[in-house]
């Protein structure tokens, strides 16, 4: 993707506004660069939310189809936040369609929400870029988080969204979002304790 003559990371230096303006002027290459710029962040968020690469492919494509349709009227400041918001809505809609009569947050006897059981099993940790044992454990630990806490964690850590934007997407107060992040970290830290201690000693 992109022009082979250009430096690989050139698109990362271009701002979203510049790329959007270029695309609006008719440059499809600018759209490609925009997709690549946000690919890892957006796809990582989707696949870790759904746990399914097949679903993640469909949702990733759907996000960009919607962006292309609405790009003429886009005027938000945070393009990455907009992408995640669209992905969030599609993920939620998909979950509701699968279980329309059940709240996705309803928990079973073991404290796991229905949303967690909707996650498909075709997620292979070996697809992780860093497929070491630690990486696998972190990925599995994140998948084990309740949906809302997992989402806050992924939006913050992977999509690098500010808490204010996350609160807007989740339609919650910033205090609630911060509390969810605290709980998520609280659950992850024990799982990584040994590694944390080792890292802290370096």
């Amino acid at each position: 993707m992109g022009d082979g003559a250009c430096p690989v990371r050139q698109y990362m230096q271009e701002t979203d506004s510049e790329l959007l303006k270029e695309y609006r002027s008719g440059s499809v290459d600018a759209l490609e660069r925009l997709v690549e710029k946000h690919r890892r962040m957006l796809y990582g968020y989707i696949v870790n939310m759904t746990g399914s690469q097949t679903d993640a492919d469909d949702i990733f494509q759907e996000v960009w189809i919607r962006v292309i349709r609405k790009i003429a009227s886009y005027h938000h400041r945070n393009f990455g936040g907009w992408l995640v918001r669209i992905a969030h809505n599609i993920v939620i809609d998909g979950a509701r369609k699968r279980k329309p009569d059940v709240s996705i947050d309803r928990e079973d006897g073991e404290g796991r929400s229905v949303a967690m059981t909707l996650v498909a099993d075709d997620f292979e940790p070996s697809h992780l870029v860093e497929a070491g044992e630690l990486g696998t454990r972190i990925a599995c630990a994140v998948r084990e988080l309740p949906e809302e806490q997992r989402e806050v964690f992924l939006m913050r850590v992977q999509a690098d969204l500010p808490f204010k934007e996350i609160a807007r997407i989740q339609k919650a107060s910033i205090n609630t979002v911060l509390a969810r992040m605290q709980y998520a970290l609280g659950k992850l830290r024990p799982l990584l304790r040994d590694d944390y201690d080792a890292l802290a000693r370096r």
Partner: protein
Amino acid sequence: MNDDELQKMILLEQSGELSETRMHDLKEALSLNPDASAYRDALVLVADKARDSLDTDGPSPEVITAIKEAGEARVAQRRTLFFPRVAIHAFAYAAVLAIMIGGWFLFANDGRSERILEIRGLMAAVNVEELSQEDPVSGQEDDRELRALARQLLIMEGLYFDDDTSAEFSDESLTIDAAPSPTVLRGRNTDARRARRYV
């Protein structure tokens, strides 16, 4: 400051959303609270490791191709709509301009010239009445009133007058001793008027 509040401040500090004032409070608290420092360090480590670990390859090349094709289709669609749109806008602007110019021509003439013509006719009629010998006294009174009225009307139309004020009408006189100089309308050719003789 309790632990919960401190942890939230640390989270906001990491996301760049903590104000400068609060940043100062946080630094002070971190220097005094070793547990808070440990929490901050753990947060940074977990975030860094998680970011690397959660990174995945994907999506498939077919998805990227589909997105590119959708982008191309949209660009082509906008190009197709662009030229008719430009033509429609140009036509609309031209129509509005034509209406504005036509309206100006139609309504700019508010009948002023017709009114001035009629008032001039009235003044001319007054002069004719001065010539009447049947009832000169009452005719003079009416003449003066009519002339004053006509003059006022012309002033209202924005015209200036250069009357010769040396001409006087005497109420007791049955005859007109001196003919008043003709009314001069600025900007008009008054040579023909000056050539007239009043009796």
